[in-house]
């Protein structure tokens, strides 16, 4: 018995899938209901390197959905990144975890190095800004979004998972980010009360996000084109390709300039320091 993960049961992913996964670095931006699920699954799969990012600590309102969080963490106000590290290391002690209790905007140099970013954030503005960043450094971004709406005295659960691949349609192309939605969100900024969130839709969406990731890194089949936007109807408990996909352009028109790439403040003097 060693501390090494035995991945024999997932060998159908390819003869070298274990090596590939071990050399893959994933960033998890947001380690609440969605991100904690993703962290756990990636650890089980054998991802070798993690960059968990979240400025927040565990609170009592997180306990209904944050995987790995315990009552003791509420009492101790454990940082969410510490909980993520604990989950990952418990499954795979060999995994490299470079945790950052910060906003992602404070650790952009490290974020540029990852292979894939999981965006598990609440606001439209934050997912939009993350996508702009990911496109600038040609990093695939997998976004999870979930919402509980109130209508006619009842509630509805919905969500979506999107794969934003550089060069391919972006969140604006897909209508997930619009100026109207950003303005509406900005107008509500600071409004009291958190959004309703529950564990089971987060788990469904996180599992789909991990499926997107696996198709990027070690695809188990390549004949079928994966829809890049899947919609979740939490009331019917169904997941289906978005109707928006049939109207999408083949290429993104929002990030198609050389000026959208690289360090806008490039200075070769920094090379000497590096």
């Amino acid at each position, binding site marked *: 018995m060693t501390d090494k993960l035995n991945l024999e049961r997932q060998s159908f992913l390819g003869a070298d899938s274990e090596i590939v996964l071990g050399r893959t670095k994933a960033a998890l931006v947001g380690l609440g209901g969605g991100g904690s699920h993703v962290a756990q699954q990636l650890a089980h799969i054998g991802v070798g390197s993690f960059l968990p990012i979240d400025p927040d600590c565990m609170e009592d309102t997180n306990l209904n959905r944050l995987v790995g969080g315990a009552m003791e963490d509420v009492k101790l106000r454990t940082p969410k990144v510490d909980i993520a590290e604990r989950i990952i290391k418990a499954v795979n002690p060999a995994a490299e975890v470079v945790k950052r209790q910060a906003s992602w905007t404070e650790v952009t*140099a490290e974020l540029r*190095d990852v292979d894939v970013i999981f965006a598990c954030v609440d606001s439209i503005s934050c997912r939009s800004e993350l996508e702009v960043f990911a496109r600038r450094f040609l990093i695939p971004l997998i976004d999870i979004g979930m919402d509980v709406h109130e209508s006619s005295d009842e509630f509805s659960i919905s969500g979506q998972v999107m794969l934003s691949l550089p060069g391919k349609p972006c969140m604006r192309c897909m209508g997930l980010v619009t100026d109207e939605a950003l303005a509406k969100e900005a107008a509500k900024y600071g409004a009291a009360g958190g959004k309703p969130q529950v564990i089971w839709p987060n788990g469904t969406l996180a599992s789909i996000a991990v499926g997107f990731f696996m198709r990027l890194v070690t695809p188990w089949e390549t004949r079928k084109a994966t829809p890049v936007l899947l919609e979740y109807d939490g009331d019917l408990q169904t997941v289906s390709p978005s109707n928006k996909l049939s109207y999408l352009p083949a290429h993104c028109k929002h990030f198609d300039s050389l000026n959208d*790439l690289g360090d806008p403040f490039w200075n070769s003097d920094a090379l000497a320091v590096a």
Partner: protein
Amino acid sequence: MRTILKITAILYDDLVRTLREPHDFAAERVAFLKCRPALSAMSLLLLAGGVHHVEDGDYVDDPSAGATIGRSALRKALQTAYAEAVSMVHVHLHEHRGRPGFSRTDLRENALFVPDFWNVQPGLPHGAVVFSFDSSVGQCWIPGSTIPACMEVAIVGSPMRCTWKAARD
């Protein structure tokens, strides 16, 4: 510090298609990737955003090499680097599977013409890459250093390509 050329699968597929087009006399084609640089915590990144093609008339009929380009081709590439403020990466394709290698001629010529781009963009890294159908090798000239660094390639698409292959080689 690692040096990594990143290119979208869309741009890469388009590039390979054009590199495989037959030429009247040249056995292979070459092109230049227009890139913007960035530094990360661990790496120097060259992010490809477009292709500068070499026109048919700018090849030189030279049976001693797969492709030889003339002065006008280089002048146009230098002009692009200057006008668009980009790093330039010379690319060509070896039509086989597995890890490719630069020929002795490639290595000699790379060392001669790649640093020429510093005449027009002295603050930017420039380089050369040879692709095979499923792998690549590259060299990057980084400002402040006269010896080229090895450059890995990541093709960003679904599935991700080459980064992993290069890591395995």
